[in-house]
């Protein structure tokens, strides 16, 4: 290895190796339907990863994403159940998700709270408040009168499920936003060095608020897709390891938690790795607990591989890296 591979390339190579091994050894793995199933099973994870990456590039983190997703979507469903029209319920749910994002953004940007603690606290608050004030039960079923949206969960466009298309489209939009728009570039500048960005005239606080609001909006979209595909929204997902999986696909794909680096592509590479691994193990009939062990072992080896090909030194080490 003359030229060092980036972490993204290491993960991509690992995914490719795994993919080839599964394709050769598991009958049916390569079928178009299975590949679609593979993608569909990680579509929501990828979408949340995209929300997370917007925040992480700007040197933040959002631990409230899953709580925000679950509560805003579950509230929307229960509003429809209680007789609100679908459009009003959607608007209210979306409004709640964005409001939570704005709230966090203001906390982080204007009162200089650490994002780690601010989002942890707000996430817990949103879940608690939602469960006791907005939603009567812990799994809210998709109401029968959800209209054409209700059918969207199982709908396909040229054979590809809507959830995959939505994730791909969102990824493309955010990729273009981060790379080619002014606010997008500002996010990188803030992630690189907030002080320098501020001196250079970047409206740091406003951009930070925008980041969290955008993450909240995407969380609602991810929740809606979840609800449409499994015909219900379980608020218990907040207590699961989903939020760590989201951070995982972001970090493992090569986006530094210290900010300023990475793009949507990294998230999708990380998501593909998890998707391929999970799909293969399900075909092999591995137990869930075994799957978790395998997943963590693979991630550990990815990190070790990266630290071997990219050893840390004073130049690559960044201040603030977690």
């Amino acid at each position, binding site marked *: 290895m003359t030229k060092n591979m980036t972490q993204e390339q290491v993960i991509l190579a690992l995914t490719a190796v795994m993919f080839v091994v599964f394709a050769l050894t598991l009958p049916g793995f390569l079928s178009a339907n299975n590949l679609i199933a593979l993608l569909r099973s990680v579509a929501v994870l990828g979408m949340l990863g995209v929300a997370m990456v917007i925040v992480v590039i700007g040197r933040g983190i959002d631990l409230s994403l899953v709580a925000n997703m679950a509560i805003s979507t579950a509230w929307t469903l229960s509003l429809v159940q209680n007789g609100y029209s679908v459009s009003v319920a959607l608007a209210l749910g979306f409004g709640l998700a964005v409001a939570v994002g704005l709230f966090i953004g203001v906390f982080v940007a204007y009162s200089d709270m650490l994002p780690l603690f601010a989002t942890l606290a707000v996430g817990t608050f949103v879940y608690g408040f939602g469960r006791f004030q907005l939603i009567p*039960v812990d*799994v809210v079923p998709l109401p029968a009168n959800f209209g054409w949206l209700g059918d969207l969960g199982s709908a396909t466009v040229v054979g590809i499920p809507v959830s995959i298309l939505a994730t791909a489209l969102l990824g493309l939009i955010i990729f273009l936003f981060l790379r080619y728009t002014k606010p997008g570039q500002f996010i990188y500048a803030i992630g690189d060095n907030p002080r320098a960005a501020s001196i250079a005239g970047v409206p740091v606080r406003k951009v930070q608020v925008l980041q969290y609001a955008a993450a909240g909006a995407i969380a609602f979209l991810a929740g809606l897709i979840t609800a449409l595909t499994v015909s219900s929204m379980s608020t218990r997902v907040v207590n699961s390891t989903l939020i760590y999986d989201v951070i995982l696909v972001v970090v493992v794909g090569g986006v530094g938690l210290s900010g300023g680096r990475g793009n949507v592509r990294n998230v999708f590479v990380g998501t593909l790795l998890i998707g391929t691994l999970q799909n293969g193990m399900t075909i092999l009939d591995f137990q869930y607990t075994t799957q978790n062990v395998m997943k963590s072992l693979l991630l550990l080896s990815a990190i070790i591989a990266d630290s071997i090909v990219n050893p840390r030194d004073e130049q690559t080490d960044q201040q603030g890296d977690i």
Partner: protein
Amino acid sequence: MRLTTLVLAATMSLAGLQLSFGQSNGAVDPQGMSYDLMKGKTVAYLPEAMGLDVTEVWGAYVKNSAEHLGMKFEIRDPNWNVDAGVQALTALIADHPDVLVVHNPDLNSYARLQKKAVAAGIYVIQLNTGSVVTTDGFVGTDFVSQGELGANLVVKACGAGTSGKVSIVQGPLTDAASSYMMRGIDSVFGKHPEIKVVSNQDAGWDANKARAITETVLLQSPDLCGIIGFWDGMDVGTAAAVNQAGKTGKVFLVTGGGGAQISCDNVGKGAYSAYVKSDARVQGRDMVDLMQMLLQSKQKAGTMNATLYTPLQVITKENNKTGICWNIDDAKTQAQ
């Protein structure tokens, strides 16, 4: 003297009738029991989490009955957090209620504390998921029977002329419900070599995971004949995967639960081929009865060891009539 006995009994029951009339007129209950023995006593309810259809219904039964009997009612909601549950249970033992109604998160976590509660003189009733410790009573589903019932239905649906391939979508392996159901399924499938279990996975009571697992299983075994799901709350995801594959009605899907209306609706839609109901309303009533019995018995906590299994009812399209399942608000209002 048979006749004398009969006459005596008749006189007594007449007297009893008179007494019960007397009571409704405000006269003193001469047996000196029932209400007086329960009035002012405290019952504490510790579910795994509120907000779940069944825990809400059970809670309504405890609460309404406590009010009706002049008892104090307390509730602690650990919201799926086992540590919080252990803390709540410890605090409750210190508060010393007269009756503790506990819904175990698994076989072991609360076991020692339940022993301690009984030793402290508190009647302990375990709800639906038992621990390894026996206490004054258990009210809930016989999960071994539920497993056998589901397995037998699948054996019937996947006999000769089918692939005999079956997938099992279960809950966490440490969970009492999951391990007992698996025992029931194994005992039935052991006698039926024509059934091939092509996948047996833990979806962690999560609809999303159940959907993803079932989608993959259906692709690997397109001729899959049956699926046994362990819980209706999770198997909406299993049903969604079957539906996406266009196999609703072609794959026999059996699941079970407390009888929430959404599950009967799913039977109506054909999403579930069969639904094994252990009615949460019956469990609520059983639990309240047991509580009254214990308080009136005046016996030392831990003396009795009653097990009240909930009758299991298989719901299919044929018997899926209005009222067989419950809507949560109605069930809570009607809980007495």
